[in-house]
């Protein structure tokens, strides 16, 4: 059994990278990939903790649901990105700025 700290460290790194990606990358696809990183960081944590606490199922189930939800989210997200591409001929997320003070 690997020390838990390694998994948590990996998860944290993924989370930070995901956040960094989402904040810095302009391309919508990259942004969504950042989101995937974050979600998977959480999923990794769940699995690791579940395993560490005695092979529990609940954490693992959580991870599975996260994957499902990530897929659903991506579907809606891509739909919206298509809309954006239609209205603003670009998928640069910083382009749509008609709303705002």
């Amino acid at each position, binding site marked *: 059994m690997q020390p838990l700290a390694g998994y948590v460290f990996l998860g944290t790194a993924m989370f930070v990278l995901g*956040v960094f990606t*989402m*904040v*810095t990358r*302009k391309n919508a696809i990259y942004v969504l990939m950042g989101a995937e990183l974050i979600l998977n960081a959480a999923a990794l944590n769940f699995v690791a903790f579940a395993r560490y606490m005695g092979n529990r199922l609940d954490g693992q189930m959580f991870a599975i649901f996260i994957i499902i939800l990530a897929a659903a989210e991506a579907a809606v997200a891509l739909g919206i990105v298509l809309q954006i591409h239609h209205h603003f001929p670009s998928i640069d*997320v*910083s382009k*749509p*700025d*008609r*709303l*705002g*003070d």
Partner: protein
Amino acid sequence: MDFFDDATPAWYALAILLLPAAGFCWNAFTYRTEFTRKRGHIVPLLTIGTALFCALTIFKHAVIDGDVGDTPHAASATHDAPAHDSGGADAPPAAGSLADPRWSWSSKAHGVVYRIIDTGALRIDAGITIDHLTATMLLVVTLVAFLVHLYSVSYMHGDKRFSRFFAFLQLFSFSMLGLILTDNLLLLFCFWELVGVCSYFLIGFWFEQDEPPKASMKAFMTNRFGDVGFLIGILLVYRMFGTTDLAEIYAGLQAVAEGRAALPPLFGWEAGTLLTVAGLCLFTGPMAKSAQVPLHIWLPDAMAGPTPVSALIHAATMVAAGVYMVGRIYFFFTPTALAFIAGIGTVTALVAATIGLVHNNIKKVLAYSTCSQLGYMMLSLGVGGYSAGLFHLYTHAFFKACLFLGAGSVIHAVHTEDMREMGGLKSKLPVTYRTMLIATMALGGVPFFSGAFSKEMIVEHALMWGWSHGLAHMLPAIVAIGGGGLTFFYMMRLIYLTFYGAPRDQHKFEHAHESPPAMTIPLMVLAFLSFFSVGWPMPFLGGHKLPELLAAPPALASIALGHGADHGHGGFALAFGVLVLSCLVIVFGYRLYKQTYKDRNPGPEVWVARLRPLHTTVSNLYYFDEFYRATIVRFSYATARVLALFDSKVIDAIVNGVGTVGQLIAAGFAAFDRIVVDGLVNLNGTVCHALGSRLRRLQTGNLQDYLAFAVGGMAFVTLLFLFLA
């Protein structure tokens, strides 16, 4: 049955008080009717006439018949009051019995009382006090008021606000009589202000003109200064004795004087200081009302009102109310306060007399003369001449009213008040001339005229006071004596400029004619009284001697402070000496007048040239007005403007911008780029607005900025959490 055994006098007194009030209401509420507009004088004449009759009745019973069956203060003391042999020295009664020995009648003892207010602490039971002072004042006021009413019928004839004039005369009579009758200091203050407001309206009666509104406002404001002092005095008195009832105040101070009680500690002052300060505060009221320097400035200007008003209010009655009030609370004044009063009186007597020497407006000369005579009265009261001062009040009321009405008659004839446009009117206005001459004699103090008696008593007291207090205190006496000369001089100058010599304005002279009887009859009556009011001590009026009737109350304040009897009296020798001295001074005054005006050797112009700086100062009225204008008036306006600016610019702004809290928050965003803010309410440029627009910068519309802010926010919250933990 004695008149004063039951409540009857109260009904008479109430009739005196309320009839003029009814007359005012009648004229005020029916002023639109034809009757009142044309015949607005009838009801007022009736009411004031009835009041005069009632006053006469009271006077007859109280003074002439001496029906003094009821003496609430000291039943026995009245009848065996210590005899005064002459001259009106006001020796206090024997120590130990500090109750007021004088006769007085109170309506409260007979159940006539009006509880005007009761807060649980302050209770004012308005009652009526009648004593010799009141009875005499009532008679003087109703008489002069009646005569002035009568005179005005003719004088104001044709004025478009004829009925309103009478309405205000009635209101004034009501207030003045209330002031006399009341037995409560706070109510006295009420009537005090009421006469002030009547005076205000009557001075400003011809409000379309330029001068009267200004003069009326000046009068009211000056009096307001005095009144506020008076009010503070009342507050102090209430603080000391817990009451404003004069009899109770007397009883309270009596207890202190007899050592039965002590004054409450206040400001850490001892009793003497406290009583003196209270007395002086109270005295500021009379100072303004009786036109004492430095609050005298309003009286000459008040001559802008109709002449009957000047005669009634600004010569005979209202201005004398100050003297009356000082007399009423005479027991309250400490020696220091009395000395102050004497000093003020002295200065007033001198200053006003000197201005009278140079003024050319007939009414203003008379006004300064009034001022000067009021100074005399105060001086007299201050030096302990209680009866002398009040006696002078009575005599002065008649002769000065006579002079003013006479001046009114002259003005009526020539339509000018400037004496330089008169002259030689003796032939045209014989009655006016003669009556005014008699009054002048009385005012000048020519022996056997009424004024002489009162004035000599004043001089006598001043001399004795100076004698007993040391050389520096002789000043009042010197002024009192010397002032007699000045008085005679300026009065003769007035007579000369008006009636003697050649007419200086031929046109006006030719159109002049004697006034109708409604005006001359009052003049004659008053001239008669100017001569004969001295007759009060005469046997046929009941055999009482004046000093007895106007005996001073025990000087409680002095006794309370450990000062004993004031001073003795001079006796016949002193009285005779004073008489001689006065005659000499009058002769000197006459000589001076004759030399200057009759013989013109040298003429007045020469004097003016010789005394140029002095003359300039005096004819500029000692620059009092300029001084006030430069200080108080200017200060007030400046303060008002500055505060108004402050209010609209600073207070409003600070409180508006839900304020400094918002500013502090703004510091984080705006680094105080706008310290002075105009407020949340103003749409533009408020703190919140500024803050809001800073916040708007965050709302860029760029998604990734938002994300960054959110991540930053997360970091911020984490740090916050760590900090708080």
